[in-house]
């Protein structure tokens, strides 16, 4: 498989992963806002920590995309 075709498959997979994590983060935010309004403050910090972990995953994937672009041979 050529590097370009491999990259196409990889980036599609990465895009799906990133979209999934962003949807999870949106869900965490709705849970946090509901908890804040109902006074259940114990939920807020774990939700924010979980959201941060998901951001780190996204940042790692983005870094991988940049490194792949830099290291891949030109067309």
């Amino acid at each position, binding site marked *: 498989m050529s590097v370009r075709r491999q990259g196409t498959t990889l980036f599609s997979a990465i*895009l799906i992963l*990133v979209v999934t994590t962003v949807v999870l983060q*949106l869900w965490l*935010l709705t849970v946090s806002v509901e*908890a*804040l309004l109902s006074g259940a403050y114990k939920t*807020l*910090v774990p939700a924010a920590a979980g959201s941060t972990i998901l951001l780190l995953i*996204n940042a790692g994937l983005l870094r991988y995309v940049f490194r792949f672009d830099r290291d891949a041979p030109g067309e």
Partner: protein
Amino acid sequence: MTSEDEGCWGCKATAPPKWRQDFPIDWEGDHYVSRREMVKFLTLGSLLLVVANWATALASKFLHRGSHAERYIGSATALEQSGSMLFHYPTDAAPCIAARTPEGKLVAYSQVCTHLSCAVVYDKAKNGLFCPCHHGLFNLEGQPVAGPPTRPLPKVKLEQRGDKLFATELEAR
């Protein structure tokens, strides 16, 4: 109207119209978003969501701070006579309910049902706080025991000094 006036790029073999020279942006190319750019935008969105999440966590600290003020809520005699007593704590917009358990313990909770915010009332026969909207029931520990509510009622700490009752803290749970 001529094709030049309409801005039809490439319709004439002559020089491009003046507006095109002033604004040489390729519209289609400007709107094309690659998957790499999409990942970049989504990661930026992810960062904003983290900021929003931490902002809600931080907001809770400020909201919680205001609920430690002491407030006179009424006399113990009035509570003994009616079995329960309504008051507002920590602000006038926050209704609460105090009741005496059969064991003689004084308890108080927010009167706002954790299901859909109806007002709960003390039900002596059921020995709990009853929500008439959807038949939710909380025991005198504030825990939901029947109906749709799943979260406990926020607890109000009370202090009795002689005949006077004071609310001292709203405990979020």
